[in-house]
């Protein structure tokens, strides 16, 4: 388990005054300070970590958010922003001496503008809620994280969420036009709008994926797209993961960018099939789902091309969806892969590294070795097109040391992802989960530069501290700090 910043006893001693001050800003039931009332907020999607906040506040207007942040800034109180709490990396894990700022009441779509193909939404609107709001006119919002029924657009911005279609349609950062954001000082800034690109620095690029450390987003303008006319999927089985990986490379090498391209290994296939009976072949080592979308004539031609490539790569089974019902059935197994694997053990731990795709066989081999070493089973699902690998490590939290083993196993996988030229996280974020692994990818200079950017937004380090960065530096120190040869000059500073 990773350590969090030491509790500020001075702030805790003033708890009653803080609750009173927040209640004055958000009247009624917008402030929750009882243990039972705060219990639902103690964790996010990374359920191994739990912590009750000092107090929960659920504002309804941007002015309230501004006043809350201004108050917390003046009183030196930490703030953890939260959308729906679906983060898989602990991004919304509360702090015992911090205010948990929930945006769930910001749940309205403010403007649907088909002429400019843009939707303006409050941050608490769910990802799917945006697509639903425009579906009657045949539009949708492209990024589609698996949690899209629950996760919010504000959380998507904070985490730069992806999904199974982001190889072709991009992640959140590629589909956002503007935000309204409140800084920790209470200042409200607007960046972007219904136009393309920012004037001045591209602050949207920083804010997307900043994991709630730079500001609280109170409004989001997204780009919407017209739905493709047709979508059909191929289900292709391979005797080896090498052959499947080779097929993925050859599809892209042929100039085809599928709408989605997913791979599952044998344990994941077995679990998914047992759970949803999607009709997956059970005698293969790797299964590919390739979805092609666009006009029917185009989809038909590409299906033919992909089929030929798959056969040339030694596919052992190949089926093409012949109806929308069948296409959705192909996907049902993949989309239910996490809960399906979850049935095999009391708990599972989902990893999220990205690797250069050609290194997949090496990485899978290493994962198998580690699985034996740690005595824990693992199933792999893989966004094959963009190299984003989700190993699911099975464990039982009630058994002594299994969580610890699972975490060490996961860390070893991520270190290996970095070793082969990949990264720690493709779409789930760093949060608390991968925080202490950041030095495997970045040296002190890299991290100091990122933290200096953080200081430009939050000079007292009050927004979501303890996430993303393995070492807390005070901003004044970072300003003076000159890192020599990647060595930090303040070895006495607290490390988590």
């Amino acid at each position, binding site marked *: 388990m990773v350590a969090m910043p030491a509790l500020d006893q001075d702030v805790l001693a003033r708890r009653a005054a803080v609750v009173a001050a927040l209640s004055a800003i958000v009247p009624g039931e917008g402030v929750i300070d009882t243990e039972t009332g705060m219990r639902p907020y103690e964790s996010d999607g990374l359920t191994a970590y739990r912590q009750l906040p000092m107090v929960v506040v659920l504002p309804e207007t941007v002015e309230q958010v501004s006043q809350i942040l201004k108050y917390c800034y003046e009183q030196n109180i930490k703030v953890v922003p939260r959308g729906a709490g679906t983060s898989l990396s602990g991004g919304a894990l509360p702090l015992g001496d911090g205010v948990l700022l929930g945006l769930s009441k910001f749940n309205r779509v403010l403007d649907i503008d088909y002429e*400019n193909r843009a939707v303006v939404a409050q941050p608490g609107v769910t990802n799917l809620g945006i697509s639903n709001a425009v579906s009657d006119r045949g539009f949708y919002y492209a990024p589609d994280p698996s949690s899209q029924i629950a996760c919010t657009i504000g959380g998507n911005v904070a985490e730069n969420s992806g999904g199974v279609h982001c190889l072709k349609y991009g992640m959140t950062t590629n589909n956002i036009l503007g935000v309204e954001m409140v800084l920790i000082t209470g200042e409200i*800034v607007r960046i972007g709008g219904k*136009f393309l690109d920012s004037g*001045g620095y591209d602050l949207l690029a920083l804010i997307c*994926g900043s994991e709630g450390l730079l500001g609280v987003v109170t409004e989001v303008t997204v780009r919407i797209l017209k739905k493709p006319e047709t979508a059909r999927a191929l289900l292709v089985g391979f005797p080896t993961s090498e052959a499947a990986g080779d097929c993925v490379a050859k599809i892209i090498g042929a100039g*085809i960018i599928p709408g989605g391209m997913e791979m599952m290994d044998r344990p994941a296939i077995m679990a998914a099939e047992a759970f949803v009976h999607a009709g997956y072949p059970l005698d293969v080592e790797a299964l590919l789902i390739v979805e092609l979308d666009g006009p029917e004539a185009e989809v038909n031609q590409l299906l033919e091309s992909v089929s030929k490539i798959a056969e040339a790569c030694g596919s052992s089974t190949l089926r093409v969806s012949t109806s929308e019902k069948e296409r959705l059935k192909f996907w049902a197994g993949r989309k239910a892969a996490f809960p399906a694997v979850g049935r095999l053990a009391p708990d599972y731990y989902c990893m999220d590294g990205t690797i250069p795709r050609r290194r997949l066989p090496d990485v899978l081999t290493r994962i198998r070795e580690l699985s034996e070493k740690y005595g824990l089973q693992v199933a792999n699902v893989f966004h094959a097109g963009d190299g984003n690998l989700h190993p699911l490590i099975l464990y039982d939290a009630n058994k002594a040391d299994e969580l610890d083993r699972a975490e060490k196993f996961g860390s070893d996988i991520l270190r290996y992802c970095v070793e082969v030229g990949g990264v720690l996280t493709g779409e789930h974020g760093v949060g608390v989960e991968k925080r202490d692994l950041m030095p495997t990818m970045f040296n002190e200079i890299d991290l100091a530069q990122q933290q200096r950017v953080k200081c430009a937004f939050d000079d007292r380090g009050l927004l979501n501290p303890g996430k993303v960065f393995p070492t807390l530096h005070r901003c004044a120190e970072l300003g003076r700090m000159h890192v020599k040869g990647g060595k930090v000059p303040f070895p006495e500073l607290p490390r988590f």
Partner: protein
Amino acid sequence: MTGTITPRDEKDIVEAVTAAASREQTMEIVGHGTKAGIGRASQTEITLDLSQIKGISLYEPDELILSAKGGTPVAEIEKLLADNNQELSFEPMDFDALLNVQAGRGTLAGMIAANLSGPRRIKAGAVRDYALGVNAVSGRGEIFKSGGRVVKNVTGYDLSKFVAGSWGTLAVMTDLTIKVLPASEDAATVLVLGLDAAKAREAMSAAMGSSCEVSAAAHLPERAAAKITGTAAAKAGRALTALRLEGIPVSIAYRKAKLEELLKSFGRLGALDRSETLSFWRAVRDVLPFADKTQRAVWRISTAPTEGPKVGAAITAATGAEVFYDWGGGLVWAEMPGLLPEENAIREALGGAGHATLMRADPTMRASAAPFEPLDAGLAALIQRVKVSFDPKGILNPGRMYAGV
């Protein structure tokens, strides 16, 4: 020291920046200097010439990535990609015709630093959307990296994208990794003839809001259209509203028929074949209607598509400027009748609903206008703090975008 420094490697850059920082000497960072005329004019003590920091270090077509040194010519990258049927999907412009600079020049780092995307921006995204990883030297003389060499990555703040569009004011980019994509097999253009800008915008919104997957949408009023020579369309002597389709032939044929059905009520239709399509969109990309070997002021204005024609009309009414539209109406190119930038008229017409950048100005007039969209006080202060976080002494391209940044 003053004058020009031409580093051979990253170490030389670190040395040069460290020395400049310790003496608080200002540096202009240049590649080939194609965009030297854009931005606020400033006098620096040192010129850091990156043209020798060059070379493509990694290209993996089936991983969709390419890594190269900052000073690598974009033309060299585009040639290599073309040989592998791939491309830079954001269609970076060539500045030779508009800015009277040498053709085929421009570096990778310069392209990222300017973040100026071409007609395909509306479908494929901006330059910054393709920035995956960067190694750069900050104003402290420290080499930092961000991002990686994979197309999907959320590890830490996305500084690779953030340095895009910063015009060299944050860091000296030494190594970059970008995403590349397959080039389309075929292309065609559907034209609607003789529309005014407002009606053209409606037609373009209808096309963009259909499932025809339009990859570019521009409107050239009669005068601008007449200046794009060499295409049959230009000879029509009428305003042109153009919609580009790209992909495999069977798909284009289908979408073209569908688009023509959708647009026939707007006006007389025409079409451009593949080779005409290539030259037409290159002309739009490189702003050929205003490539008149003059120094008349040229503005590039990004706004919501529905606002574009209103902004264009207001600018023309106030100044007599000539305009044309890209990005479905959301990008307005305006050429002033003379050397005066007429900044007030531009800012007033836009009314803060987007951003306007002065792209061409006579050297004697450059100081009379703020070339980038002014920021409100809150954002200006934030940007200033971010600048300091990279470059505390303010030595890198100081004032290129804004005073004090």
